[in-house]
Every structure is written in C-alpha cells, then in structure tokens.
C-alpha cells in the first residue's frame, strides 16, 4: 500500500470509517513511515482545529429581512403581471375600436356576399380582397402617416400612464 492510499485511510480514520483490518494496516504503515507519521499528526491537528470551530450566528433582524425580501419579490411579480395585463388590454381595446375598418372595406369591395355564399370563387375573391386591401391601406396610410404615428404615441403614453396609476393604487392598498 502506497502513501497516497494511506493518506486516504487517515482521512477515513478521522471519520471512524475504518474497520479493524484497515486500522491494523494504517497503524503498521505509520509505525514504519516517518513522512506518513508527520502527515497523520498534521491531519489530527487540523481535525482538532475544525472540530472545535464555533458556529457563527445570524445577524439580528435576519428573519425580518428575509420576509421583506420575499414580499419585494412578490410585489415585483404582481407589478409585472399587472403591467402585462394592462398593455394587452389596451391593445385589445385599440383593435376593437379599429375593427369596423376591415369590415367596411369588405362590404365596399363586394366580397361579403361571396363569403356568405361560399363556392370556388371565394378563395379567388379573398385573395383579390387582400390585394385590394394592401393597395388601399398604402393609399390611405400615406396621407395619414403623421396622424397614425401621433395616435400610436398617444396610445402608448396612455398605456404607460394607466400602468403607473395602477402601480400607485396597488402600493397605496399595500400601505393600507
């Protein structure tokens, strides 16, 4: 058995994990090997040092700080979910307001009767409608670019203001 293996046995000996046969091997080697004897004494000194080591106590108010940390995390999560719900709600509202536009176009281009009647002409008419819609939108958007951007920015601003008001309301409720 080499000194490296004996070293591992020394470590196991400190943990009372050697059987009688292994103990005999270790003791026999230590009696014959000065280097391992020195190593064994060092390990024992180390073991005494760490075995007598004190436990460091948690700071006062630690529990309070942990609970506060949990509450901050819960609040941040609620704010995120609430903000996302508010933004989605604003987008849904905007879509509802703009919904009559495509239906109006459908009626104007005469696609609605074909859609209701069905038949092989329907697909061709749908494609024709989409093509016409794209052209119409391009024609419409060009003069309306500025107002549309303005409307978009106002909607974004309104969503942010409403989000801020909601967060403020939640905070006031929490404080209460």
């Amino acid at each position: 058995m080499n000194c490296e293996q004996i070293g591992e046995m020394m470590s196991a000996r400190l943990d009372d994990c050697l059987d009688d046969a292994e103990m005999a091997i270790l003791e026999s080697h230590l009696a014959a090997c000065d280097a391992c004897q020195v190593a064994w004494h060092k390990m024992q000194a180390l073991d005494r040092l760490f075995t007598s080591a004190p436990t460091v106590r948690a700071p006062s108010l630690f529990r309070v700080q942990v609970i506060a940390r949990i509450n901050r995390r819960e609040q941040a999560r609620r704010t995120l979910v609430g903000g996302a719900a508010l933004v989605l709600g604003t987008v849904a509202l905007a879509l509802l307001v703009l919904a009559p536009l495509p239906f109006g176009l459908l009626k104007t281009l005469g696609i609605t009767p074909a859609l209701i009647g069905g038949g092989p002409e329907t697909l061709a008419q749908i494609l024709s409608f989409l093509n016409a819609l794209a052209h119409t939108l391009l024609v419409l958007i060009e003069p309306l670019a500025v107002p549309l951007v303005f409307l978009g920015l106002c909607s974004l601003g309104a969503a942010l203001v409403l989000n801020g008001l909601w967060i403020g309301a939640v905070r006031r409720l929490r404080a209460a």
Partner: protein
Amino acid sequence: MTDEAEWIQLAREGDQAAFGRLVAAYQTPVYNLAYRMLGSAAEAEDAAQEAFLRAYIHLKSYDPQRPFSTWLFSIASHYCIDQLRRRRITWLPLEDEFALPVRFTSANPGPEATAARREQQDQMQQLLDVLSPTDRAAITLHYWYDYSYQEIAQTLDLTVSAVKSRLYRARRALAERMEDKAL
C-alpha cells in the same frame, strides 16, 4: 406531525408566518454555512437570505421524505458555490472594507476568549480559502453540521466515493496550508 412538518405544510399553502418560523429555526445554520463558504459577513448575509427566498419559491417541490435541513443546505451550498465560481480571479473573498462583525453561538465568553476565538476564526477562514468551492462545502458540512458521507453526497449531488476523495484532498490541502502559515 412535528412542529417543523406542520410549519412546512402551512408554508406550502402560502402561510408566511409559518415560513418565518422555519427561517427562525434555520437562520443560524444557513448563515454559518454561507459565512464559511464565502468568508465575508456581508456576502454571507445576502447569500443566506437568497437561499431562504429560493426555498420559499420552490417549497412546493420539496420532498417531505427527505430531511428539510438537507434540502435547505443543498440550496444554500449550491448558491454559495455559484457565487464563488463567479469571483473572477481566485476563491479569496472580496475585500471587505467595512467588514461586518460576526457573532458566535456561545454566549458571554469574556474579552480574552473572544479575541482568541476571532483569531482562530480568521485562521480557519484563511485555510478554507485555498479550497475549491465544492471542497469547501464538503468540509463545512462535515465539521460544522456533522454530516455523514451519505448526507454530504445528497446535499451536494455527489457520490459517496467522491465525497471521501474530496474530504481527503481538502484535508491534505488544509494541512499543507497550515504548515506554510506556521513557517
């Protein structure tokens, strides 16, 4: 059902007061583990708080068949190991310019004993600094929590033979460091 099992059950149902009782019961062991791992009172406080936060978030995934302490120490150990690995240069603690004082569990030891204890404390932390994060965790769990090889293996997701090897290598490294410092 023991008190602890009752607190865990209530905490899983969202009872924050029950979780607070668990924190009170384990705050010192978790903080001590973090301090031994990170070597800094400020970092240990943050790490211990984070460990409890993670335990709270994942409480529903805790298996009641397993000791709660093992599960909690596993969370704390892995977080501390990650923190040590993130330190860019070495495993030495960051300079603690305004080092927070640490308190020990034994009460009223007297000024001389306190000074001797602090010196021993500093010596031990300097020794622990030479170890890798996982070896440091193994040594800490063994000496401060009297964990068996099996318990250390469960806490650190290692095999028992890996734990034996790590403890041996860690002790050898610590013994060499002790000799260097004595010289």
